[in-house]
């Protein structure tokens, strides 16, 4: 069974981004970029399914600038077999990415797509669900457990108050939550091996997808800053402040 794992190159989660002074966006020049953490969990899950023998081939896909090749090499170092870069310098919004992935899914005829529930840059949480809709396939978002059997995926999902289990007819789209697995550390030999794995490059035009953004970013500003308050000496003065100053209890 073939699995597609879309991966996004994002600003590393440890970097605190700065808003540009002209309010056109955030400054991502010269900051550390990494694979979106949720996508790393997706790659790990695909590799574990392959290690269990239920998956035969893992294809990592990334959409964006040529540097996304590094993200794809990381995916292959974790264990993806090959990679496809949909290369473009254009701004890509979730609907456009979903359309690109749909085109790749059609071409590769994969049975499963696993991707992160959200990217930590735009925090949109849309792409997996949109891909499922465009492909007219079932979806399981926020997965904490994935099993494949008899042409179906049994997925446990994180929902309000606990968990829910659904059974999806394959092909299906699954998005990962934090506790699905803990991604392995990438070893040097695997990084070396990943350099030799095949990486194809296509373009939105060659896939016949119009990626024109539907949302215009009017401006990006700093959020309202919250100042530090005061330190209190002991529990008694804390209770006093809450009762008599903040009046919240």
């Amino acid at each position, binding site marked *: 069974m073939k699995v597609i794992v879309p991966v996004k190159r994002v600003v590393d989660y440890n970097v605190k981004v700065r808003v540009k002074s002209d309010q056109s966006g*955030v400054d991502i020049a010269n900051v550390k970029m990494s694979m979106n953490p949720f996508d790393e969990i997706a790659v790990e899950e695909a590799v574990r399914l392959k290690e269990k023998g239920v998956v035969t081939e893992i294809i990592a896909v990334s959409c964006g600038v040529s540097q996304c090749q590094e993200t794809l090499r990381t995916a292959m170092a974790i264990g993806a077999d090959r990679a496809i870069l949909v290369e473009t310098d254009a701004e890509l919004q979730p609907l456009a990415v979903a359309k690109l992935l749909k085109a790749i899914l059609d071409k590769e005829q994969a049975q499963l797509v696993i991707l992160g529930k959200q990217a930590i840059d735009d925090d949109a949480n849309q792409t997996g669900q949109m891909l499922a809709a465009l492909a007219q396939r079932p979806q399981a978002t926020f997965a904490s457990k994935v099993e494949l059997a008899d042409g179906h995926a049994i997925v446990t999902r994180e*929902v309000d108050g*606990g*968990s829910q289990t659904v059974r*999806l007819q394959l092909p299906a789209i699954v998005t990962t939550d934090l506790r699905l697995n803990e991604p392995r550390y990438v070893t040097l030999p695997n990084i070396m091996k990943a350099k030799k794995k095949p990486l194809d490059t296509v373009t939105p035009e060659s896939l016949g997808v119009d990626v024109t953004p539907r949302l215009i970013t009017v401006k990006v500003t*700093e959020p309202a800053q919250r100042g530090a308050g005061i330190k209190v000496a002991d529990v008694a003065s804390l209770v006093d402040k*809450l009762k008599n100053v903040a009046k919240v*209890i």
Partner: protein
Amino acid sequence: MTVLVIAEHDHASLKPATLNTITAALKCGGDVHVLVAGHNAAAAAQAAAQVAGVAQVLHADGPALAHGLAENIAAQVVALAPAYSHILFASTPEGKNTAPRVAALLDVAQISDITQVVSANTFERPIYAGNAMAIVQSRDAQCVITVRTTGFDPAPATGGTAVVSAVNAVADSGLSTFMGSEIAKNDRPELTSAKIIVSGGRALGSADKFTEIMTPLADKLGAAMGASRAAVDAGYAPNDWQVGQTGKIVAPQLYVACGISGAIQHLAGMKDSKVIVAINKDAEAPIFSVADFGLEADLFEAVPALTQAL
């Protein structure tokens, strides 16, 4: 221009997030209709009709809508979509699950997690874990939106006199099946709508200690319980207690952070709280930079003492 709000409900009653979503819908302009899609959900539809500001309630009732499966709910919304300029969901696990499916089927962009309605097609939303706020404008004919509930006050649950109209329920897609769920019984207020939240971090050291130290404080305050990602990852607290960028976004009147250092991802989930209290023995913990009242102390002594003093 008419706005459709997709109600979140348990078939018998509306979930509080729906009320905040209705407030956002009223700000978009035009009449606000509410869709209650469920199975034997007449009581929830009646509750929606009483919400102030709602002009009409559409009630779709059928077995395919019993478990909120995204495939079926999205099909139901798309069937009704042509009449609406805006379609709003709460930014909750349910809303986030279904809204993008609707948007893609309508071939429009989704605007996620809005915190403000600037105009009918322009909205404010946080990006990069709330470290930047973006104003975005839609070029599409329809807007599909998820609403960050902490950005909008709840609409009054009573005072409305909307008409409930039945609409045809969609058939099952046959693509997915509900197998079961495990929902923890919880008498506490819901995390995202609680007035007071007490939240614990990794410093609690174990699940037993988490319960032993935090529960009495929550009981005393009538508070909901939250946790940092580190505490959840370590298994001290259930997954859905996680407050932060990728967990729950909360803004209670009072947020008490115990043994939480305050990673930016955690701050992203709670920094809009009215009053923040931090109890931490590390004087350098970033949580103190957002706390109104910081107590530098060992939580194993301070939290029980606080519980006692209340």
